[in-house]
């Protein structure tokens, strides 16, 4: 799993672009990398999933954790470019509503 992080200090915005397959094998390292970049306050975060071709319940669990953690710290999280191949997992678990994908 590759991750590219772009921070815009002026706009208080961070984008994480992920590439690869998001399963239990990848989640632990990725969760800690993204968690370390979260700061308290009114920041917005985006996770770009355009290049994520596979996502399972471990990946979903990580996204749920990150959204809750970011919200707890006063920020906002948005998912970008959710590919059709993984969108059904969000629909199946009704997480499309939770992440505002509808």
């Amino acid at each position, binding site marked *: 799993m590759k991750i590219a992080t772009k921070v815009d200090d002026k706009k208080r915005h961070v984008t994480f672009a992920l590439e690869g397959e998001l399963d239990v094998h990848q989640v632990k390292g990725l969760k800690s990398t993204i968690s370390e970049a979260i700061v308290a306050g009114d920041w917005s975060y985006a996770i770009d999933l355009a290049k994520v071709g596979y996502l*399972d*319940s471990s990946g979903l669990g990580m996204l749920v954790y990150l959204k809750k953690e970011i919200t707890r710290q006063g920020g906002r999280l948005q998912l970008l470019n959710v590919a059709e191949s993984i969108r*059904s997992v969000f629909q*199946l678990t*009704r997480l499309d509503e939770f992440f505002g994908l509808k």
Partner: protein
Amino acid sequence: MSIAQLMQEPRPRSTRLDLEIAGTSRSLSLVRRLLDTCTRHQRLQPQVLNDVKLAVAEACTNVIRHAFQFDPTRRFGLNIQVSDRYFLVQLQYEDARFDPGTIPQPDLNNLREGGLGVYIMRHIMDVVEYATDPPTRTVTLRMMKRISPDDAGGQSENRYQG
């Protein structure tokens, strides 16, 4: 007919995989690749294949994470049979503590980090059944998905129910 009986029944143009998988999360991408390979000639709809691949991977993840706690020295059996009518999966592993009656239903209105794996399996597959054999501490998970003629050119029947 039970899933176990269906797995014994010879079917024309079926593909069968009998694997022994190590209890490490690295095995999961290998399982997904093997599923791609063994379903290729069945010409399933990509979304049906993605769904089934996800259900099998969730089952394997649960074994590796909860039963084996990522112990790479442990092994479980994975049998897959794909025909023009059924997608049959059997996982067999040792877990003295597992009680299928205690699998919690996730609260979709108040989601936590975990607990979605079995929920996803049950929504994708038509049948998901666990059997335990306490004397040998063996757990057998069997799953079945019916392949309708439309699955080569239409949507699966079971998606998004419930």
